């Protein structure tokens, strides 16, 4: 199909362009790295924010990802897209951060308890949209429990779940970013869904 071919062509073209940009950076034109930051900062931040739910932490982590990517640029083989590589760095960074903070911070803590969805959530994005008080309350509760269920997942399971259901990435893309095979990814997704079900059971 022409659309798919053109999409694939565009992807390859971009990959080729980025490969040449990286070669120039390694040759000393370091200013060219700004292109990568500008192009991917929002996507990396979004992933970090979805996993951490803290804007400041997500910001710091995003910066770290690009600095690490820059430092390791010579090791970047160019087999995968830069975005995939940066995503992998981000996932590892989130995993390290979550492990370090595990006893202290949870999604539940970050999102707030009880009726609060968390202080960082702007009012216009609040699920309580006024359609019906009972429905709003239920939506808030389910949302909170989804967040609680996510925190019970291992960092890797959480990353896989978020990439699949929040970022709509394909299994192949998740595999490229995490280094996991399809079976393991599906297993993570299945376990994540099961934990979600356990958390939501009494609401049904």
């Amino acid at each position: 199909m022409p659309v798919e071919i053109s999409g694939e062509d565009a992807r390859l073209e971009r990959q080729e362009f980025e490969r040449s940009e990286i070669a120039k950076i390694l040759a000393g034109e370091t200013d060219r790295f700004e292109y990568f930051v500008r192009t991917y900062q929002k996507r990396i931040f979004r992933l970090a924010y979805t996993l951490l739910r803290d804007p400041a932490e997500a910001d710091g982590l995003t910066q770290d990802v690009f600095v690490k990517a820059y430092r390791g640029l010579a090791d970047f083989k160019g087999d995968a897209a830069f975005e995939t590589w940066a995503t992998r760095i981000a996932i590892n960074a989130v995993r390290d951060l979550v492990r370090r903070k595990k006893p202290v911070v949870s999604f539940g803590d970050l999102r707030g308890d009880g009726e609060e969805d968390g202080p960082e959530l702007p009012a216009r994005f609040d699920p309580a949209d006024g359609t019906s008080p009972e429905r709003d309350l239920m939506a808030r509760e389910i949302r909170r429990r989804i967040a609680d269920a996510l925190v019970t997942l291992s960092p890797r399971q959480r990353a896989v779940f978020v990439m699949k259901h929040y970022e709509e990435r394909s299994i192949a893309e998740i595999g490229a970013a995490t280094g996991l095979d399809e079976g393991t990814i599906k297993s993570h997704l299945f376990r994540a869904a099961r934990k979600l079900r356990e958390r939501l059971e009494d609401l049904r």
Partner: protein
Amino acid sequence: MKTEENRHLTPDEVVERVFPADEKPGAVPSHLAACASCQAKVARLREAWLLDRGAVDGIVEALPETFWEGQRAAVLRTIEGVSAPERSRTSGIRPFSAAVRTNRLFRHPLLAVSSLAAALALVAVVSVLRFGGTEPAGKGSSAMATPAVSAAPSGDQADEELLLSIDRILLEEPAYTSLLPDETT
């Protein structure tokens, strides 16, 4: 008798409808098409998830351009710092940061004053040796090898006065006496 058609979806099946592990969700159970209760359960979960996802999207999209600019600037600043040692090695300059040296030097007044005194003393000694070495006839390059202090009385006197004044300052300030050799205290 319960058949597939009149059996309600299990909690796992409800979750699987919203969060399928496969790329594409499985076939819709025939019961779901007819059961309002099961449809409501699936819809409620899907709605909560979409709200959460939308909230994340909304927060990211609502961030102003200045936020992204600031983030970019911070990354590029850090990167500059990362590559700076490489550049300095090739140009062979600035092995240490001037700012660090300055901060360390002036952090303690005692150290600053004593450093000043030592510097003045060093200048005086070098001056004594230099003036002493240039006065006599012969090879000018032998300044350091010629201990002719007495050959330049006027210069020596000035230097001697300078050294004495430094000693006086050190002696008058009790805080600095520990810096002086034992025989002068």
